[in-house]
C-alpha cells in the first residue's frame, strides 16, 4: 500500500490546521455561512437533512486494517457508531458536530487519510477496480495510476474551480468493475503492440439527470504521457465546459454537444501544446509509487484446498457463501472474498464500529491486513488463502457479516435517499430493505442468479439506478413518493443505460412489481440465461408488460 511521504503528511496536516482555523472563525461569526460553505465543502463537509455529513475519501478503495480501525474509532467517538460506504469508495459519517470535524480530520491524518476534494467542483476521489492487484484478469494494478492522479489533482490550481465536479475511474482488468464508461474520464490499462504499458481512454460518461456512456477518445496513451493527456482533456473542459447552467456543466454535455470527433481534435491540439519535458519527473514519481504496490509474497500453495473442499461438503451454508461471495485470485491457492454489507433489512453500505473492527481483525488474520471498498458498497478481503476461507467465514458469521448474497438480488445498491439527503425526492433505503426481506430465501436468490438492483432517491443518481438491471428512481408525484423503474442498465464493459418502463409505482407497490417481473423472468429464461440475457432476448416491451401485469 502507498505510504505518505513527508510532503503528503505536511500537506494533509496543514489542511487540518487551516480547517480548524476556519471552523473557529465560523463559530465566532468571523465567517458567515456563504463564506464558510465553499471551505467546508472542499473538506468534504456537507449540511444534510438532519445534521452535518462528512465524506471521507478512501483512495482507489484500498484500506489497511489500521485505517479501518480508525474509521471505526471515528464512528464511535465522533458519530453515532456507524458509517456508510458509498458507490464511489468513500465513507460518509452522518452525524458529526461542526466543532469536532477538525479533530476527525486530524484522526484521519493519523492514518494517512483525508476528506479533501470529496465535494466541490474539482477532481474527486479517484476510484478503481476493487480487485486491483489481485484480479486474475488484470493486465496491471491500476492503483499506482490512481495515486499519481490523486497527488497531481490535489489542490491543482488550474483544476480547483472547474465548471462542475469531475470523477475519474481506473481499471487494469478486462472486466470493468470500476464503471469507467460512466465517469468523466475512464482509464483502462492496456498494452500496445510492443508490449508497452499505457491506457485506453474514455471521456464524457456520467449518470445523473443526463446519463451518458463515455466515448473512447484514444485507443492507447503511453503511461508516461498520462498526465499530459488528462491535462489536455481537463483544459478543453475547463475552457469550454458550460458555466451558465449547472445542469449542463459536466464534461459529458460538452463531449456530446460538441461531438466526439471535434472534442477529440480539441483535446489532441491541446495535448500537442503540453511540453514533453514534463514527463520525466512523472515517470520517476510513478516508479516511486509503483514500489508501494509490489505484490505481497504469496505462499506457494496448491490451487485446490482439501480443507476447503471438505468444509464445503460438510457445511452447506459455508458452501453457499464460497459459491456466491468468492472470486478468482491471480495467485494459486488464494481467493478474493466479498463481505456483503447488505444484511436482510439493513441499510446498504452501512457498517457499525464493531463491524468495521471485525473486518479489520479479519483482514489482519486472513488477508494480509488489506481491505477494499467496492462500487457495490461492499467490503472485499483481497488476499485470502483458500485453506483459510472456512476460518474466515466462521469469524465473519460471528460478526453477522457472512451474508451470502454478493451480486445477487438482495445485494442492492442504494443512495442514502430522503432519510439523510437534502437533495432527495424520495427514500431509497426502505425500498432496499423491503427487497432484501422479500427475496431473503437464499435458495431463491441463487436460483434468480446475478442481477443488479440499484436505487436512487433523486435524479442525481448516486445509487446508479441507470445502470441497474433493474433501476429504481424515487421521485415526488402529487405530494407522495413515487418510484420509476428502468430496465436493462449495465455498468460494466458492456455498458448500457436502462430504459424507462412507464408510470411510477407508489412506495407500497414497487417491490410487488419487481417480484412480478422476477417471476416472469424465471418462467421465461432459457437454460442459464442471466436476467440481462433474457431481457435482451425478449425485449423491453415484454419485460415492461410483466412489471405492470397487475395494473
Amino acid at each position, binding site marked *: 500500500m502507498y505510504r505518505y511521504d513527508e510532503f503528503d503528511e505536511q500537506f494533509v496536516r496543514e489542511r487540518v490546521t487551516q480547517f480548524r482555523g476556519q471552523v473557529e472563525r*465560523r*463559530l465566532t*461569526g468571523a465567517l*458567515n*455561512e456563504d463564506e464558510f460553505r465553499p471551505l467546508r465543502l472542499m473538506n468534504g463537509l456537507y*449540511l*444534510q*437533512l*438532519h*445534521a*452535518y455529513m462528512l465524506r471521507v475519501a478512501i483512495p482507489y478503495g484500498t484500506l489497511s486494517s489500521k485505517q479501518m480501525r480508525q474509521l471505526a474509532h471515528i464512528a464511535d467517538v465522533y458519530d*453515532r*457508531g*456507524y458509517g456508510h460506504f458509498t458507490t464511489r469508495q468513500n465513507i460518509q459519517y452522518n*452525524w458529526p*458536530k*461542526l*466543532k469536532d470535524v477538525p479533530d476527525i480530520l486530524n484522526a484521519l491524518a493519523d492514518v494517512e487519510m483525508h476528506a479533501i476534494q470529496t465535494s466541490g467542483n474539482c477532481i474527486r476521489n479517484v476510484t478503481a477496480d476493487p480487485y486491483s492487484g489481485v484480479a486474475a484478469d488484470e493486465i496491471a494494478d491500476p492503483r499506482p495510476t490512481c495515486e499519481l492522479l490523486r497527488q497531481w489533482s490535489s489542490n491543482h490550481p488550474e483544476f480547483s474551480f472547474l465548471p462542475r465536479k469531475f470523477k475519474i475511474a481506473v481499471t487494469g482488468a478486462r472486466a470493468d468493475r470500476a464503471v469507467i464508461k460512466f465517469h468523466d474520464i475512464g482509464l483502462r490499462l492496456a498494452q500496445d503492440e510492443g508490449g508497452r504499458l499505457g491506457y485506453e481512454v474514455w471521456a464524457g460518461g456520467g449518470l445523473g439527470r443526463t446519463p451518458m456512456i463515455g466515448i473512447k477518445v484514444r485507443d492507447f496513451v503511453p503511461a508516461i504521457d498520462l498526465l499530459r493527456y488528462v491535462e489536455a482533456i481537463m483544459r478543453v473542459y475547463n475552457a469550454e465546459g458550460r458555466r451558465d447552467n449547472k445542469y449542463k456543466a459536466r464534461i459529458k454535455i460538452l463531449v456530446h454537444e460538441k461531438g466526439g470527433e471535434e472534442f477529440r481534435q480539441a483535446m489532441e491540439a491541446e495535448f500537442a501544446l503540453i511540453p514533453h519535458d514534463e514527463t520525466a519527473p512523472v515517470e520517476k514519481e510513478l516508479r516511486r509509487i509503483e514500489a508501494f504496490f509490489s505484490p505481497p509474497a504469496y505462499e506457494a500453495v496448491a490451487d485446490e484446498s482439501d480443507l476447503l473442499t471438505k468444509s464445503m461438503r460438510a457445511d452447506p451454508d459455508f458452501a453457499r457463501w464460497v459459491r456466491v461471495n468468492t472470486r478468482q485470485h491471480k495467485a494459486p491457492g488464494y481467493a478474493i472474498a466479498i463481505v456483503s454489507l447488505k444484511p436482510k433489512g439493513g*441499510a446498504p453500505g452501512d457498517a*457499525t464500529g464493531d463491524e468495521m473492527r471485525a473486518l479489520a481483525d479479519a483482514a489482519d488474520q486472513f488477508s494480509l491486513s488489506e481491505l477494499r471498498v467496492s462500487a457495490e458498497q461492499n467490503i472485499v478481503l483481497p488476499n485470502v488463502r483458500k485453506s483459510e476461507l472456512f476460518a474466515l467465514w466462521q469469524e465473519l458469521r460471528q460478526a453477522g457479516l457472512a451474508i451470502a448474497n454478493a451480486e445477487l438480488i438482495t445485494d442492492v445498491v442504494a443512495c442514502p435517499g*430522503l*432519510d*439523510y439527503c437534502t437533495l432527495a425526492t424520495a*427514500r431509497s*433505503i*426502505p425500498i432496499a*430493505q423491503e427487497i432484501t426481506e422479500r427475496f431473503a430465501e437464499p435458495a431463491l436468490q441463487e436460483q434468480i442468479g446475478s442481477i443488479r438492483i440499484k436505487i436512487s432517491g433523486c435524479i442525481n443518481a448516486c445509487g446508479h439506478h441507470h445502470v441497474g438491471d433493474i433501476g429504481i428512481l424515487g421521485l415526488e408525484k402529487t*405530494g*407522495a*413518493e413515487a418510484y420509476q423503474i428502468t430496465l436493462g442498465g449495465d455498468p460494466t464493459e458492456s455498458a448500457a443505460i436502462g430504459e424507462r418502463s412507464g408510470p411510477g409505482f407508489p412506495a407500497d407497490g414497487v417491490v410487488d412489481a419487481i417480484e412480478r417481473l422476477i417471476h416472469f423472468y424465471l418462467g421465461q429464461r432459457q437454460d442459464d440465461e442471466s436476467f440481462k440475457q433474457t431481457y435482451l432476448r425478449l425485449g423491453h416491451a415484454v419485460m415492461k408488460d410483466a412489471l405492470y401485469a397487475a395494473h
Partner: protein
Amino acid sequence: MAKKFALQIVTANHLLDGNSIFLGEDGWTADHHAARIASSPEAAATLEVLALADEAANHVVGVYLVAVELDEDGNPEPVHYREKMRVRAIPSFWPDPVKARAPARRRGGEAQHVSL
C-alpha cells in the same frame, strides 16, 4: 381566487450540530410542536425575518418556512412528506424515537430548547 394561506412555522439547522430546529416562543427548539405558528402571510414574513436575524448572527443556517396543519391536539405537523421526515430528526426506518445504536438524541429526554 387567491390560494388559501397555509399555516407556517420556520425552521433552520443549528450551526453547531446541524440538527433541525424550529423557532418557538422562547427561542429555537428541537420540538416542532413548540414552534411559533404563523397564520397569515404577514406573520410568516415576521417569523422569517426573526429567523434570518439569527442566521445573520451566525447561530443557525438554512432558514426556511414550512407549511403545517394542526393535528387533533392542535400541534403543528408539516404538510409535505419531506418535512414530516425532517421533524422526526432521524431516518424513517429507525425505531422511534431513537435507533438502539444511536442514543444521542431523545425527544423529550434532552432539554427541549436549544441554547444559543
